[in-house]
């Protein structure tokens, strides 16, 4: 089970559609919580999620200056997506909902029953 901060960060990375930077994540968190979120917690949480293989990162294009620095672009993995699904479902059930919640749109079709 992931923590609330990890859940919010995974949502922000998911919204970034494969090229989310830590700055984008921090901005999204600050918007969501109406409070300036610390960069330190974002960096460490992203590192931990990366260790858990919930997100993966690649180096982006360095900025134009000589010796320019390259940002890390984060992308959510399948395991991250699954963990996020579980977290959302758990929150929904804890709030009194049913198990059939699908956070990513329409509910899935029922599997055929073999007799």
């Amino acid at each position: 089970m992931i923590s609330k901060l990890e859940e919010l960060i995974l949502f922000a990375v998911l919204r970034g559609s494969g090229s989310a930077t830590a700055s984008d994540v921090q901005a999204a968190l600050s918007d969501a919580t109406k409070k300036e979120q610390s960069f330190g917690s974002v960096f460490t949480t992203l590192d931990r999620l990366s260790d858990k293989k919930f997100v993966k990162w690649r180096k982006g294009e360095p900025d134009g200056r000589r010796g320019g620095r390259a940002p890390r672009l984060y992308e959510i993995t399948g395991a991250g997506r699954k963990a996020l699904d579980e977290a959302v479902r758990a929150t929904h059930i804890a709030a009194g909902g049913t198990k059939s919640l699908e956070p990513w749109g329409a509910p899935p079709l029922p599997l055929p029953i073999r007799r």
Partner: protein
Amino acid sequence: MTKCDSCGKVIRFLPSEKDKLTEYTTHTDGTRDERYIRVSICTWCALREEGRVRWSFQRKSILRFRKIEDANQKPPKGFLIDLLVPPDRADDMLLELQKGFERWVPKYGARCARRMFITHSIGSIIRFWIDGILKRLDLLKFFASGGVSDERDRARLF
């Protein structure tokens, strides 16, 4: 009778030639422009704008406003991060903090953004090293428990 432009209340003291507002614009090359504006807002409305414009009383009826030109503010160098964080992590960390600084300048003003940059960079360095220590402690706990990562695994094995 002079009324406040902002709230419409009557201004108690009559603005004379001396009652004027001085706005300073400081450029990046160190030069400074001064501009005098006639006071047409009351003191309380002026003070309400404190977040955007920094103020101090010079005399009883004269407000001195100081406004820094925010647009040309360069982000701080962040040498602490370069010094205390491994280079592969420092690159990304510094770049992101500088992006954050650019976002904070129009929102909070240059001085506050600079202060936030320093606070966040120190916080990031401390958290980076504390997280490293905690990871090693977790590893120690993992070996101490005989290679079992959590209670559920322990229950399954024993």
